[in-house]
């Protein structure tokens, strides 16, 4: 059930200033079509371990809030919890973030944005699912409009359970994530590249108005 593209993405004939007409195909001309590849770490393990340590100590969370969990993220910045002291901070742009927190149920519409944001992050990058909704749909398990299992759509490194989990739980979860990273077990980005077709087909199954390239660089 291929949906027709939005007008701005459709192929069109454009006349150049010299009067010659040519075709513009936005999805091809505006977007990079390359697909992600598996990225290997540094050649020396010690270097990679060092980097992994640094990655763990410097978690930059993308400021992207979905569902009810977004409200639980805020207290982490406050004096009471002060996540900064653990090397955790928020970045406004996915380019600079390396941790995507899906903070609750994810409607299909938001999923598309989440995928885009995730793909625009640079690897290595990590995904943390917050609350039961990201695990199995939670109370929205039969909703027509939310996804049930985040893992089908992007490689989740860690789930933090609860509905919703408290900030303390989040801090604990991040500490666990750090351990995973230091251990070199948080290779979600490579997993995503390896099983790209599978992820894509899952994504496209729920997202009917797919109006972006397969991989958003």
């Amino acid at each position, binding site marked *: 059930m291929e949906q027709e593209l939005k007008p701005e993405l459709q192929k069109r004939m454009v006349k150049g*200033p010299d009067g010659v007409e040519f075709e513009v195909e936005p999805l091809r001309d*505006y977007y990079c079509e390359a697909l992600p590849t598996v990225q290997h770490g540094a050649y020396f393990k010690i270097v990679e371990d060092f980097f992994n340590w640094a990655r763990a100590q410097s978690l930059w969370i993308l400021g992207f809030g979905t569902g009810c969990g977004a409200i639980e993220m805020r207290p982490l910045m406050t004096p009471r919890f002060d996540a900064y002291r653990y090397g955790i901070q928020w970045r406004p742009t*996915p380019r600079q973030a390396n941790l995507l927190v899906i903070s609750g149920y994810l409607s299909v519409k938001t999923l598309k944005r*989440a995928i885009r*944001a995730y793909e*625009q992050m640079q690897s290595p990058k990590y995904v943390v699912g917050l609350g039961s909704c990201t695990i199995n749909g939670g109370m929205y398990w039969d909703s027509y409009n939310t996804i049930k299992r985040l893992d089908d759509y992007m490689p989740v490194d860690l789930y933090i359970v609860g509905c919703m989990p408290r900030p303390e739980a989040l801090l604990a979860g991040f500490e666990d994530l750090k351990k995973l990273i230091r251990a070199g077990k948080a290779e979600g980005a490579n997993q995503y590249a390896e099983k790209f077709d599978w992820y894509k087909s899952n994504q496209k199954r729920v997202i009917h108005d797919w109006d972006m390239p397969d991989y958003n660089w």
Partner: protein
Amino acid sequence: MVSALHIITAALAAAFLLGLLKEQQRGLAYGITLLTLALMSWISAGWLWTFASTGTAAVEIFTAGTEPPFAINLRIGLAEAALTLLINLVGLLSALALKDTLLALGRRAMAVWLVAVMALSGIVLTRDLFNLFVFFELTVIASAGLVLLSEHAKNDGQALAAGFKYLIVSQFISAFLLIGIIFAYHATGTLNIDDMAAAAPLLGGGAAQAFALAFFLIFIAVVAELKPFPANGWALDIYESAHPAFSALFSAATGAAALFAVDKLLLIGGDAWLPMATGIGIVTFVAANLLALPQTNDRRLLGYSSIAQTGLILAVLGQRDILGEHTLYIAGGLLLSHAIAKAGLYWLSGLIAERGLEAWAALRGQPLLIFAFVSFISMLSGLPPFPGFYAKWELIHLLAGEGRIVLLGLILFGALLEAGYLFRWFGYIMKREAPTEVVDNVAHKFGAVFATLAALAAAWALSLVWGELAGLQFDRFNMLLALPLLFALAFLLLDWLPVWVKNSLAIAGLLAWFYLTYTEYDPLRMIFAVIFLIGGSLTLLASYHEHGRRIGFYPSAMLMFAGLAMLIRATDSFDFFVAWELLTVGSYFLILRGKHSEPHALSYILFSLGGAFLILAGFALATQGAPYFDLAALADLVQPLAPWVFLLLAIGFMTKTAAIGLHIWLPGAHAEAETDVSPMVSGILLKAGLYGLIVLLLTMGRQDFYGVELINAMLWIGALTALIGNLLAIFQEDAKRLLAYSSIGQMGYAMFGLALMNHLGWLMALMFVINHYVYKSMLFLSVGGVAKRTGTRQMYRMGGLITLMPLSFIATLIGIIAVSGVPPLSGFGGRWIFYNAILTAEARLPMILIFLAGPIAFLYLFRLIYTIFLGQLKDEFRRVKEAPFWIVLPQMIYVAILLVVAVVPGLVLRHVDAYLNHFFPNGGLIWEGTTITSQFGYWNPVAIMIIVGVIFMTLFAWLLFVNRRAQKVKQFNIVFSAERPFRPETTHFAWNFFAPYRKALGFLTLPLVTLFWSTMTDLLHTAGDLARRFYTGNGQTYAFHLLAFVVIVYLFGMGVRP
């Protein structure tokens, strides 16, 4: 030698002979008419040749075998011969142009034509007062009849009405004339002009009083024939409704004859009547030009112009007391210029089907006719090399020498008005939509075309003659024969060649001229010579990209370059001014070539001419009567005069550098010019103004004007210009306009530097001269190339062109780094010298302004490069190619120059620095190895270049290494708050780029100056428009005007006379 009398007898005989022919033998009649006119012309030409070549005295022709004063006598001298030749030739050529009409109307019309021409010659020749009256009446009657020639084609009764109005007025005139003549006769007992002139001063008491009154009547009657303001509505109606070929005669010949009659009368009246002539003349000149402004009918406009010119010449005749023996040269120059130009224009008007000024766009596609038009309006505006220029030059000098400043000012003001409407008209021709009804078949209008071309030839011949005369008078070389000018004019003849040939010739010419003259320049002039000549040829490289013939480009461009070349070689005021005018005119034509440049070219030429007039006035004031002076002598001027001269010259030069307040012409002119013209007018031409300022400041230096140090005023102006120019630049959407405003700012810096009047200030100004040439030429070229490829100059419509036009991008990048003065490129040298320079200056407040101006430059420069080359590429430009090779090539050369100058600024600056030591011995720079040291600081361009280069390359290499696997992405691969951009147009942030700045400082960019000037022009225009309603078209009202004129002149003139 055939007696001049036969001019009259031949015409009469032929006129009577025509009556013997059958009505049907029209061809024969026409042939006789032409032959007779040719014979008349030949007679006058013979006399003219005799007088001109042998210099013999005037010849008297007696009639009735009796000596004057008892019988009528005629006289032919140099002036008479010239005037009769003019009249007869105009008659002949007009008859040619009238061929259809004359053939249709038959022998009677031809007879009237012959009589009209004869009567005009009679007015010139006769020395008898009453005979003068008879010839005047003949002229009047013949003219009234000839007005109807147009009735033949149009048949709408307008000409009839005009003729009737003329007759009404002429009735009044002839009544005054007759009464005047008879009472003058009664008082002096003679009718002979010379006899009366001899007798009049001897009269005493009541007789003198009575004679004065009688003479007043004669004088006012003859002056009324000159169509003085306001008693001239009838004449305008005639000009509008008559056949253009007749109008040519009416304007050129009748005007000339009547003026000569006034001249004769003034011989009788003596000096006491001169002020009255001047007053009437100058009022007419200014008023008619003012009234001409709102005209839309071409022939009426020309009519106003004719009236104005006649007024000017009348005013000149009125200045005979101070002009002395120069009167003939001046008045003759003006008169012949006016006559030939006006006749030519009227003949041209015969080729145009409709009467609106815009309809003249039909001339487009007829280069020769356009050249004729240009020559004519240049002649009327008194531009070199035409006789009017010499005349104006001498006139203004003599007036200034005598301190008649008000008159001088009025003449220049009127001339500016006139130039205004003439050049506006030219703009219409070049730029307006050509009417569907194009010029009639040129072959069909052979007569008019031939006449026009004859006038064109006469115009140039006259300029040669006047140049020669000027040569004799001031002992100098004929300006028209100056090599650069001839070279430029030669391109008129070569215009049929393809572009690449002409371009090669032009470049070769510039280089050759540089080679010929380079030994003459001191280092200061050398800089300008290199920029004007070498730089000019570099810029010309870009012109290779044009194909076809590019008619008109090369004559204009080379005219400008000729002016520039002559400017730097000029050592006296005359040469300097000539060069100045030439480069102004040449650049005007260049600018006008742009697609939408009509209004901007107009404001350019108006500001430039205004400035030129100020310069002229300044020179004239400075010489105190001498025809010209060595520019170096400016230094010898002393207090009461010097500041005025300084002020006039400085303002004049600052119109060219577009100082604030006088800058509004620049953005449009530079932005709308063609791709390769913009760098010429911006990179090269602007320097002419700076050169002028340099010459001025070198000689005159500091001047105190009522307690104001003028240099300080200039400092303020420079700073304000820099600030406002830069500020305005950041708000431009049009790339070339942005660059143009940036030029204003840069010129502000240079002016500021000059006004500092110290060693480093000048060095900085010269550095700016060089740098501005290089980077502004480069930027204009690259932006022009982009505009050429994309078809727009609106920056917000471009974007992301970096990958498509990488070379243009590089040029722009280097350019903006250089402009902004960021190390390590050459712009920094300028800034460094600048800061050192202002440390020594006393005036600190203007510095603050210029400080503010500095960082603002970054704003517009970034905007320029970002909105064009970076950001989002638009759909329609996805296939745009790099700018043409020939546009890119000079840019790359400029890039190379910039880099070289950045590393070794000493290449040029050292010599200038050393040269400046002559003028400012203190505060020079010390050149030691690669380090340049000033009184305050030091600077090592080579070291900077190396350090920055090494750091830069190291980091670049490191980043490349780290990012060796970076994925190249496309334009929409940007983070967009987890969304995707809609379209490139909506994603490219470019329009109203500096919105917050506008909120904070936008009030500084209110178009106050534009508002001021447009209010001024609107006021003038409205004044003209309201005042012209005074010509109601009712013949009776015109009679009122005439009587009122007589009464008012009587009250004013006779009231104050002793």
